[in-house]
């Protein structure tokens, strides 16, 4: 049924997607097919943001995306944080702010914020960045430390 092999670059490397079924979700491709488990599954219904990755630089819910629908794209996940300036910056800021407890939501927050900084620039108002993170849920921190992490990521020298 699969006419062609889909092509995806994941964190800088071409992904081997030979034999992938048409209905596979990007989240499963990343975690199970490619073994990249930094991207988390929380709800699988679009509600929690734990599965957020960047598709051509734009934050995307991997649980609600068919891998074939993003054929030809450049996918960046938390596993590629070291090779992406915005992701590294946000990771450092979150670590410094202690913006996590169990850490399950953290990859989603870091990737979503990195995406916002790419879209809106580092000078974007804090309010706009926080508004843009409304789709990410955390069950542990009470958010105060995460808000500090966002403020740090914004202010930290480039």
């Amino acid at each position: 049924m699969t006419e062609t092999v889909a092509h995806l670059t994941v964190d800088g490397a071409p992904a081997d997607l030979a034999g992938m079924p048409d209905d596979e979700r990007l989240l499963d491709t990343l975690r199970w097919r490619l073994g990249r488990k930094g991207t988390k599954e929380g709800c699988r219904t679009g509600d929690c943001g734990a599965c957020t990755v960047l598709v051509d630089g734009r934050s995307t819910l991997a649980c609600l995306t068919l891998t074939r629908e993003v054929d030809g794209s450049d996918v960046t996940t938390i596993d590629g944080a070291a090779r992406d300036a915005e992701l590294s910056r946000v990771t450092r800021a979150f670590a410094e702010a202690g913006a996590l407890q169990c850490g399950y939501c953290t990859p989603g927050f870091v990737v979503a914020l990195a995406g916002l900084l790419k879209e809106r620039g580092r000078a974007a108002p804090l309010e706009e960045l926080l508004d843009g993170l409304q789709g990410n849920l955390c069950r542990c921190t009470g958010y105060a430390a995460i808000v500090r992490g966002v403020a740090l990521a914004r202010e930290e020298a480039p």
Partner: protein
Amino acid sequence: MEGPHAPRAVPGFELVAPASVEEAIAALRAADDGGATAIAGGTDLLLDLDDGRLAPRRVVSLRRLPWRTLDWLDGALTVGATLPLRSLEDDREVRRRLPGLWQAVHAVGSVALRHRATLGGNLGRSAPASDLIPMLLALDAEVDLVGPRGERRVPVDDFVRASRRTALLPGELIRSVRVPEPRPSAYLWQRVRPANDISQIAVAVAFSPGRRHWSIAVAGMPPRPALLPDVARDLGDGAPSDAALTAAAARASRAVPITGDQRASEEYRRRLVGTLLTRAVRAVPFEGGRPL
């Protein structure tokens, strides 16, 4: 590859991505036996597939169709069916000339959701609590359809029937949505959580400067978002007086389509609708009886 969601060897459906509108229509028609469904952003469809509500043999992707467009022509806005909502939200002219539409788009899900979700998909799903349908109703928007028997234009009010029910014929697709004129407008909602939650009730208001009349729509309960023409008439032909606004809010609270369900009681919704209407109308900028 183990675990609850490890990839399966046999896919539940075949995915095709036609490069032309004609092929897309043919692909939808040709699967009459097992059923075919279009996919745009997939943010509604994939949930319907997961809970088994839909089980098509073929899913027809619209991603290669040239419909990710946004055009202003003679004051009218035309939005291509597959334009991601985030791009609609990022258009400065939309925010300036149709502020209510901007607010409604901004209210949908989260940023990551809006990077994939589309206007065509929102209309295709036709949810009673859609944030976009009430605003499109208040803006007198029309839907441009293309199908096996050609093209047609349908007012949103006729297109939307009930939850998951629209005027789409077999093989027909939404190509674009047309908003006829810029309108001072506002969209307000009440939810438990601001993001990724469904409105208990939402109110869309818009004023047509040309025809000097208001349009009011409510959403949040079955069977579908609805226009409230009598309430709109109470507001008169410009900036309403306090008395007119109070009368309109009272009438809106008594309006027929308001019902209770698990998300909010009827009583709570009746109170809310008047409050949101009052705030929304006041949010529409007027000066000396003329819209700004």
